[in-house]
């Protein structure tokens, strides 16, 4: 028990300090922008949308914006923000993209910012990673792979 807690903690610390460790999918660097651990969830049958999640760090001297991207199984990709306003779930497209200030790190995660995959041609199933890309206003386009986690990714049982 003790050991597994310590091991989990150690893994968590590694994940934070060593984004390239086995706990993560690959990292990507483009002109001062570092992208780590892109992932998505398996979708229910019939679903035509999904969220993509990742961490972005701007190590450059200028602010940049995540303005779009692509996903092999989707017709289009938008940058969205989801937020809970009391009991109401609010979703909006961030038409001007998501700004990442110099030195800042932003995590796109469930119940928050996400890359919205729209018009899925087929459900996302657990298995190998799915190819996509991210487009930044200044840094440009970078190809990435999204790890596919179970539909229950946030609710292990």
């Amino acid at each position, binding site marked *: 028990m003790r050991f597994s807690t310590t091991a989990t903690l150690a893994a968590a610390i590694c994940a934070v300090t060593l984004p390239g460790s086995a706990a993560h999918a690959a990292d990507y660097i483009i002109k001062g922008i570092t992208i780590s651990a892109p992932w998505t969830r398996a979708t*229910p049958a*019939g*679903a*035509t949308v999904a969220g993509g999640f990742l961490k972005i760090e701007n190590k450059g001297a200028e602010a940049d914006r995540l303005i779009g991207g692509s996903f092999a199984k989707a017709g289009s990709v938008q940058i969205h923000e*989801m937020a809970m306003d009391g*009991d*109401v779930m609010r979703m909006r497209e961030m038409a001007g993209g998501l700004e990442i200030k110099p030195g800042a790190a932003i995590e796109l995660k469930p119940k928050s910012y*996400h890359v919205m995959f*729209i018009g899925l041609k087929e459900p996302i199933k657990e298995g190998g990673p799915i190819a996509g890309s991210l487009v930044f206003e200044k840094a440009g386009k970078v190809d990435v792979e999204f790890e596919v986690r179970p539909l229950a990714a946030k609710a292990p049982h």
Partner: protein
Amino acid sequence: MTAVRLSRVMPVLAAAAILAAAAATVLRAPAPAPGIGGPFELTAHDGRRLSSRDLLGKPFAIFFGFTRCPDICPTTLLDLSRVIAGLGEAASGMHFLFVSVDPEHDTPELLRLYLSSFDPHLTGLTGTPAEIAAVAKAYRAYYEKVPTSDGYTMNHTAVIYLMGADGRFRVTMRAGDPDAEQIAILRQLLAKSGKVGS
């Protein structure tokens, strides 16, 4: 004047706060909200018409969402599926209703396909835009279309309403709260309806 008013109101507020805190630990109950619920008639995912009258005699859980929802709807359905499994046989003593707020896209056929990924006790409901507006109004649930660059997405109330076997509002529940807490709430709802499960 203000001071007098405050001194009168304060003990009442304090008592209300204590009561609310006590209730929250057990049921997460908001202040009693009279008027939540009411008659409705919608189309179920198997194509049959379902009216609120058909539900009388069993308590039910009802919540709003849509299939083009990337996050909260599938996770709510997944959380609820786990809670339903935790109820065991008792789950058949109530109804679990998922009402689409995007009826233009969510047909009964699509809801049937979508719900095949979740617990079979869940019933998907859709209808005409007017029928959806009526049921949302009855439950004081909010929803609206939000335009995007190539279509729309939806804002919507994401709470689960728990209704008694008489069709009257009992309490709200939030997906994502600990399973054991949600299972306890549902068991209590079932027990009060005389449908005590295993």
